[in-house]
């Protein structure tokens, strides 16, 4: 849809809705939750492979894990789930979990330590994209026989060195930590794929919901697991329907055909706010918008120029105009609500100060190229930057391209500047610290393209060591303090300007209670929902 059509339709809808009230609305059944969402990113629901938002949403409700977040109290951090308790060995390398008794899979099979052993080893052996969340602890296909071991009612995992226990446990709450039913999965194995093909479209979990059907780009249907150890969910069926357009989602919400609309744009949010029986929720998510400058560029490598760039961003102007309500200013690499997150945002648009900084190192007008992927809001951000940069004599040439074109150049360290977004991979501060402020080998040969610091050719000036120290610190409070310190230094010296954190705005039927999308750290939970 082009911008003109979108504008036209929003304007017309707004006008029409303003003039008239809707006909008597339908109502979804009291024991059924119906959600409109864009679910075309689901490619598989195998917990060892699923790494997209909508897929994680499904997975979180189907699979229990050793430890998990309580949706009604996310701030409390990880809590016992299939593991009742755990102990850590003296050298800090082995965590031994004791399994909760009497829990059953959807198939009726008991959940055993052996299933946990199978599930975690499976992640490592399959080596799919999210497997790094486990393999970063030194697990390999060769050593899982000794490092992930079930013994009776306990399961032990032994890491290659000492890490903060909170780091390991946080990683186990990610989607890859979902425990699958070994018997059922192996009965569906084809050509040694450990059930990967079968689990892509079927489920074998012990969570509050059972997958009834997933029709790609159409719908996901879940039915409740009455035997769930945490109690049977109130919503007996949950249907997530793929509805692409914001305006359509809004119509369905206001008609009462759906309970929740998850992809409303700012115009439709504003419109839906006026509707009877509809409530709008704002929830902070983990996604960050940022810009970064390549340290191979002679001018951009100067600390004063990096600083100046942070004063050449119209944070407030963007937040209050086209990002209206969907992003909030945030200048730190840990999203708010993460362990160690801080909310100091010292930078604001200050062209004079930027000019002074540039003049202090004798940098005259210069020209750079910024790479942006084709997405409306990112292009608008780049245009705003182009305007403010020009005021200090920096000419910003915007190159818009596909993911392959732009990311390819970014990863090859060829872009002067990148305007992009980053979402945390797992709910531990190391996920972002490890990519923004960690770069042990800055040489071209290192090829560490997964690290954002590396992509900008930034030798982190000592932060790499601090990040490495924080990830092994066992005291939670000390660890949080360490990340706060790292971020304070990062704000000053990094070639990154973190700009915004995502806010997800959801339209909901007022009757729906306790729907938690998972905040910045996890995915949506349907089981506490009532209406």
């Amino acid at each position, binding site marked *: 849809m082009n911008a003109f059509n979108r504008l036209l339709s929003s304007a017309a*809808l707004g006008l*029409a809705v303003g003039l008239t009230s809707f006909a008597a609305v339908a109502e979804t059944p009291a024991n059924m939750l119906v959600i409109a969402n864009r679910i075309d990113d689901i490619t598989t629901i195998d917990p060892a492979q699923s790494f997209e938002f909508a897929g994680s949403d499904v997975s979180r409700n189907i699979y229990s894990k050793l430890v998990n977040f309580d949706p009604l109290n996310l701030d409390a951090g990880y809590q016992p789930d299939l593991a009742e308790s755990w102990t850590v060995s003296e050298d800090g390398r082995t965590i031994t979990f004791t399994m909760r008794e009497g829990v059953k899979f959807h198939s009726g099979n008991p959940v055993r330590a052996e299933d946990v052993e199978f599930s975690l080893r499976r992640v490592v052996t399959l080596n799919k*994209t999210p497997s790094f969340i486990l393999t970063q602890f030194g697990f390999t296909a060769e050593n899982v026989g000794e490092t992930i071991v079930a013994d009776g009612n306990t399961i032990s995992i032994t890491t290659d060195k000492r890490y903060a226990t909170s780091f390991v446990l946080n990683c186990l709450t990610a989607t890859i930590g979902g425990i699958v039913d070994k018997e059922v999965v192996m009965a569906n194995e084809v050509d040694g794929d450990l059930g990967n093909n079968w689990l892509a479209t079927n489920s074998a979990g012990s969570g509050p919901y059972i997958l009834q059907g997933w029709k790609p780009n159409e719908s996901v249907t879940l039915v409740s697991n009455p035997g769930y150890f945490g109690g049977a969910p109130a919503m007996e069926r949950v249907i997530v329907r793929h509805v692409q357009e914001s305006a359509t989602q809004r119509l369905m919400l206001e008609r009462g055909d759906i309970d929740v609309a998850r992809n409303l744009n700012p115009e439709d949010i504003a419109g839906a706010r006026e509707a009877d029986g509809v409530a709008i929720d704002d929830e902070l998510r983990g996604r960050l918008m940022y810009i970064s400058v390549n340290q191979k560029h002679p001018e951009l490598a100067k600390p004063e120029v990096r600083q100046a760039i942070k004063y050449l961003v119209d944070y407030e102007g963007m937040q209050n105009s086209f990002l209206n309500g969907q992003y909030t200013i945030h200048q730190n690499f840990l999203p708010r609500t993460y362990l160690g997150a801080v909310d100091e945002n010292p930078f604001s648009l200050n062209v004079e100060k930027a000019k002074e900084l540039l003049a202090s190192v004798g940098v005259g007008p210069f020209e750079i190229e910024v790479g942006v992927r084709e997405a409306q809001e990112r292009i608008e951000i780049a245009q705003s930057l182009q305007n403010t940069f020009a005021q200090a004599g920096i000419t910003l040439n915007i190159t818009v391209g596909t993911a392959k074109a732009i990311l390819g150049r970014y990863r090859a360290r060829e872009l002067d500047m990148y305007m992009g977004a980053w979402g945390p991979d797992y709910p531990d501060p190391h996920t972002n610290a490890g990519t923004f402020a960690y770069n042990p080998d800055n040489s071209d040969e290192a090829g560490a393209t997964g690290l954002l610091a590396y992509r900008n050719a930034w030798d982190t000036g000592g932060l790499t060591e601090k990040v490495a120290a924080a990830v092994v610190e066992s005291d939670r409070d000390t660890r949080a303090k360490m990340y706060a310190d790292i971020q304070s230094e990062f704000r000053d010296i990094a070639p990154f300007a973190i700009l915004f954190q995502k806010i997800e705005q959801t339209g909901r039927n007022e009757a729906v209670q306790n729907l938690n999308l998972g905040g910045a750290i996890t995915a949506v939970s349907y089981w506490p929902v009532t209406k």
Partner: protein
Amino acid sequence: MRATFLTLGSIIVTMLGLIFVTFIIGRVMPIDPVLAIVGEQASKSTYDAAYEQLGLDRPIIVQFGLYVWDVIHGDFGKSLLTARPVADDIKRVFPATLELATIGVFAGIVLGVPLGVIAAVKRGSWIDQVARVIALVGYSMPIFWLGLMGLLVFYGILGWVGGPGRVGIFYVDIVPSVTGMILVDSILDRNWVVFKDALSHIVLPASLLGYYSLAYISRMTRSFMLEQLSAEYITTARVKGMSENAVIWRHAFKNIRVQLITVIALSYANLLEGSVLTEIIFSWPGIGSYITTALLSADMSAVMGGTVVVGLIFILLNIFSDLLYKVFDPRAK
């Protein structure tokens, strides 16, 4: 017999050409299918494994040969997005489009043909003006906007029709899928509740498509008719004292049937592949939205499979209209 072989030969050549072009486009597009599968964060070993799994490490000519071989066997590969064989996906989504387009084009014919005829007969009258305005609006209004307005008025405000999707959420998966077309399946199942609900969902998107084909069909009908009505034999017939009705329908209309068939076949083919926006607005899980989603996600096997199927439909409809030509037009024999 020889003609049949020639037709068959030209189908095969056209299909091979189509497969070749889609294959090449798939390869030169600035999209990395591997990155699309494994994502930005994948390690090098994960990336390499997926690269090999897709067979991208082989010479391109070998890849093409293997692809043609698979397509001949009805195998379009596996979709990255849905984790299922593309052929299965197409079997699932195609009936949804077929159902929608068939009703749409049927509405277009039933309303468009008489409208075109009357407009031609009453050339310059108010009916002709109205027909022209209808066609003009049909051509110039963005389908997207019209669809949303339709939803807003008939679903949102009046509540006369069902909302987006093929059936209401409570009726999903209630009737067993035999043909994949819900209207037909619910009749087979004698489930009138689902039939009624499905009908209330299809009426709006099908009307929208019907309107677009009506605009095209009525204009073409009008110009074909005008051509006939100015011909000499019509004057002769009138002079002979034949009734006006007989002149129009038995003489003039009979002579434009053949041309109309081509127009209708084209219109139908357009609806079958070009209803993308309608499918998106109405969350209609058909082949148009399937190919679009696949394209946006670099799911190249799905894009290629979908394109080949759509191409095949075009070719078949062309052959079909050629055959009808031969049946109706004695000169073509």
